């Protein structure tokens, strides 16, 4: 009797497990349909998305010959790297500094940090443009939208996230460490480099990655705050987002974008695999240490 009940229970949990996994993979598949279609149809020369006209690498060849796309890609990458770098420097210094502030001024700084986090991108972008226009109208007539206003826009986008990635690492840190370094004769600058920096480095790195993804993906802030410059020269700066948006407004997605998406997808996949392997290794290693210590 007891035995029969148990098998029934086991059957039940097995059914739940199979059903749950089926649901997860189905949802995953549905989410990946557009990406998978782009990847598959990047290996055919057909201009129409969805028609197969034989296997070829034609789109990859035309992708790299298309000067407009290459210029937009270059702009996107330069802008992302530059704005992320500025955000990381400003945000890390900000987090380290505000960490030392008294309670009330700290609360003010924190709420200032929250504004761009909760404000929708389009409101952020509009407010920036209005200020730039205001400056041009009332303060300095020569002021206009340029690469610099675009850079400021992208820094605004990612700055709070760098701050918020570094902050928890500072909270985890033992404040006595820095003081000990000073007591042992280290200069504040040296203590900052050799004690604080290594402790918050993981936070800085994840902040940098977050800043990169926010900038690479951005459309709204870019299209609001951009002027001429970068690789576009005297013309409006085009990034991948603005270029693709302008094209899909008029017609289907440019076929070269399938090739580009495939390359981005492969790159992201590679990064994910490498990081996962590194993390599992690290985790195993730390387990090993704990085991040794216990033994």
């Amino acid at each position: 009797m007891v035995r029969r009940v148990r098998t029934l229970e086991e059957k039940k949990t097995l059914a739940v497990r199979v059903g749950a996994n089926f649901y997860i993979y189905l949802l995953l598949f549905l989410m990946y349909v557009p990406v998978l279609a782009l990847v598959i149809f990047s290996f055919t020369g057909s201009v129409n998305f969805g028609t197969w006209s034989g296997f070829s690498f034609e789109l990859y060849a035309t992708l790299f010959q298309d000067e407009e796309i290459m210029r937009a890609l270059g702009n996107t990458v330069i802008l992302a790297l530059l704005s992320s770098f500025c955000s990381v420097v400003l945000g890390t210094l900000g987090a380290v500094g505000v960490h030392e502030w008294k309670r009330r001024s700290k609360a003010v700084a924190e709420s200032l940090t929250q504004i761009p986090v909760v404000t929708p991108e389009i409101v952020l972008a509009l407010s920036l443009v209005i200020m730039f226009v205001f400056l041009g109208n009332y303060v300095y007539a020569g002021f206009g939208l340029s690469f610099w206003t675009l850079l400021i826009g992208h820094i605004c986008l990612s700055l709070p996230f760098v701050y918020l990635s570094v902050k928890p690492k500072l909270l985890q840190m033992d404040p006595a460490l820095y003081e000990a370094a000073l007591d042992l004769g280290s200069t504040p600058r040296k203590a900052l480099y050799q004690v604080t920096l290594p402790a918050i480095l993981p936070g800085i790195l994840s902040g940098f990655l977050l800043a990169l993804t926010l900038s690479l993906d951005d459309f709204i802030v870019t299209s609001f705050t951009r002027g001429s410059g970068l690789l576009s020269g005297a013309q409006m700066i085009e990034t991948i987002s603005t270029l693709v948006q302008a094209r899909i407004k008029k017609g289907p997605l440019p076929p070269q974008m399938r090739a580009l998406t495939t390359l981005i997808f492969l790159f992201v996949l590679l990064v994910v695999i490498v990081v996962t392997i590194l993390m599992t290794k690290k985790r195993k290693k730390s387990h090993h240490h704990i085991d040794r210590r216990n033994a």
Partner: protein
Amino acid sequence: MQWKNSKASRFFSLKRKYLAFPYILFLVLFILIPTLLIIFYAFSDENGNPSAEAMIEFFSTPSKISVLVVSLFMGLQTTLICLLLGYPAAYFLADKKINKNAVLVVLFIMPMWINFVIRTGATRDLLSAIGLDGGTHPWEATLIGMVQNYLPFTILPLYTTMLKLDRAQMEAAADLGCSPFKVFIKNVLPQSLPGIISASEMVFMPVMSSYVISDTLSEGKITLFGNSIYLNFSNSQWNAGSFMALIFLVLIGLSMLVTRRFEKDPVASRGGGIW
């Protein structure tokens, strides 16, 4: 080490609290002042004189009111569908008996790293290939695009809350005679409420303010808040645009009052620190 005792060194041997100065200056110049300018522009006319013109125009133009209503509906519907689809997924992903594979969670986030304009274009082309084009089915097409784009943002905060679920409590409830349904309603749901709230916040406002997805998938037939502000921007209607932006800021303020007591981690819900 020459500089060690010079004046310059004393200047640079800064106390750490001064390091935040450029950060705060940047936020004041490029976040705080522009936000205040929005409020100023919302209540002034083209010449900078105080005026309620933008406000009166907004509330007396039916098309603008309908933008507000349509945006609210689109936001609510997307949030609801994302929660219904994402909640079970997050629950299963966080259950060690069902999923032992941490990479699966990363797979759910990965689409966020592929340019969303390209993804939107591809979705549009695929949908019109099966007859769901923006010309004939603007609402459905836009909804599908929104859900597809915002589902990862729902699953991530839900997943982080589910990891913290007290499973012993759930088992105790079941052992003491609660039906699975009752366990869910009385125990799982209240425990995961913070996740539900932050997931909704990640979807609702961004959907209302989105531009590219609604513009592309409905072929310009559906005008959300974002599309409306974008139009104001293209026509340099700074006062009307500012007033719409202000309405948004008020909405955000209200929602923050409601959700204040739930702790949130904006970095985690953006996909930072998944590993």
